[in-house]
């Protein structure tokens, strides 16, 4: 928008509001790290601590006494990594087929992809639990990563990107050179779509890392809890050890903060992909 000079006072006021808003947005993260470093006495003190303390190591060992914290961290990481690897493979294959091939029922299958994006997730929660129960998959990590391994969002993203980034002539040329269809996908297409794979990988990893409802109903033994479920299990209404919970939360949030600092632009672009065309 064009800005004229008489607007500078208005703009300063706007900046102050935006700055205060940013403080409001970031303050909870600040307090997570403050409380994670404070001993119990300081947290249950009036007024509460506003600056870092020295009890971080103590709080980490406290959270380990309450829950099998490193197991939970490992489980979160394992599920997120498996989901990401499978989703990158399955979504790029399906997206490639939808972008580059003509085949019977293509429209029908693509309508299913788009339609499955509209289904509210909680509609499937109870029957998914019962299905996993019937399969004997309760408490198994695969009950978490397999259903999430070929998401419609990823297929859509891949189809858009492959359609614009991979020239069809390249496929023709590879075929004439005697390349099989899978080798064309693996050796010709995949190397060209690195940026889209990166974006989808980030989005998938973060979504899986933060996921709560599915692991809440599927994982039953504390060793198999993912981090969000484990942290929630520590919270009790009366006498919560907040230092320990905040140390755990800080460690749960830390990978996301690092990914965000490194890749925020790509992440924002990836999450809004598709929306912008709408």
């Amino acid at each position: 928008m064009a800005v004229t000079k008489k607007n500078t006072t208005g703009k300063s006021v706007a900046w102050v509001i935006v700055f205060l808003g940013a403080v409001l947005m970031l303050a909870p993260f600040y307090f997570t790290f403050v409380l994670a470093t404070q001993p119990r006495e300081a947290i249950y003190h009036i007024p509460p601590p506003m600056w870092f303390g020295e009890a971080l190591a103590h709080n980490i060992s406290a959270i380990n006494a309450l829950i099998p914290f490193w197991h939970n961290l490992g489980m979160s990481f394992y599920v997120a990594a498996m989901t990401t690897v499978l989703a990158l493979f399955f979504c790029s294959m399906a997206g490639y087929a939808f972008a580059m091939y003509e085949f019977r029922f293509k429209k029908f299958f693509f309508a299913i992809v788009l339609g499955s994006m509209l289904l509210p997730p909680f509609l499937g929660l109870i029957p998914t639990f019962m299905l996993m129960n019937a399969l004997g998959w309760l408490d198994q990590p695969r009950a978490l990563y397999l259903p999430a391994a070929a998401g419609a969002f990823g297929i859509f993203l891949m189809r858009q990107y492959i359609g614009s980034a991979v020239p069809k002539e390249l496929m023709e040329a590879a075929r004439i050179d005697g390349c099989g269809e899978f080798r064309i996908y693996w050796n010709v297409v995949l190397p060209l779509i690195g940026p889209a794979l990166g974006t989808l990988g980030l989005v998938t990893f973060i979504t899986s890392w933060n996921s709560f409802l599915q692991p809440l109903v599927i994982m039953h033994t504390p060793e198999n809890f993912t981090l969000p479920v484990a942290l929630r299990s520590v919270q009790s209404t009366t006498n919560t050890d907040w230092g320990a919970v905040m140390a755990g939360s800080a460690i749960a949030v830390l990978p996301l903060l690092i990914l965000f600092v490194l890749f925020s632009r790509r992440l924002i672009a990836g999450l809004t992909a598709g929306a912008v065309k709408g």
Partner: protein
Amino acid sequence: MESVLSPAASSTAPRRRKRFQSWKWAPYIFISPFVIIFAIFGAFPLIFSATLSFAQWDPAAGFGAIKWIQLDNYKFVLTDRWFWKSLGNTVYIALASGLPQHLVAIPFAAFLSTLLRGRNIVLGAYFLPFITSSVAISLIFSSLFSKDFGAINAILMSLHDHLPLIGQLLPDHKVDWLQNTEMVKPTVSFVVFWRYVGWNTVLYLAAMQTIPEDLYEAATLDGASITRQFWHITLPMIRPMMFFAVSLTLINNLQLFEEPFILLGDNGGTGQAAMTTAMYMYRTAFYFSDFGTACAISWVMFVIIAVLSYGNNRLFKLAGGED
């Protein structure tokens, strides 16, 4: 593998034997993981859930214990006062967190779109809550909102005592954010607002960046003020994105679960003042072992979401002057 030619190439070389036209079946192989996973973990559970909503069943008793009871689950849900209370809570929180999100995000995105520098840093700060774990966030907020030892009350009290003029508007006593039935819904709404306002800003900013700059240049030459440009260029041009963003807010907020579940516990707090319908469904299934009724609740909610989304669609079409 034999050399395989594309349709165009093989028609110019008719003598080559078409033994294995892998380009014909390859796409089906490529989409098969999606189709299989969707069939097993997407479509089948939905059919199962729809079937079960007409039955009474405690899964611990085995498949033989399924009793068909026609519409009884739906009749029960629609006359259950706890269902209506949870729906009321959900709609309250959806509106109280959803409306401010968009009323803040649109002017904020308009402001950001005028910036040449610093835009990404500001945007990053507002977007961060969206990508962090809602459980970790809710745990943090339940500590911050704690009545006696929470930082929020401490800061408000200190501002009340030391900030001139505005300070007098702030409460002079500790607010019981998480126990007082009057306060829990606004508190949950605030946390939801806090989490999604940056996401909506990003969506609106992306839409504003696609508006051609010469529209504004022409308007400026014609003497239109910034405010008029906002109302007559920016708002109409971002209408498709508004529809998309409002639809997303609607769909997500009506399924709200994690924030109230963590902030207030699995029963939705004192007097169940913040028990949402999604939480009620969860309790019906996993605490009361009544899976048939829980499935019926989820389908009633699905219909409500679908109807409201359709209404939202009509509203935007009417506002845009289409039919």
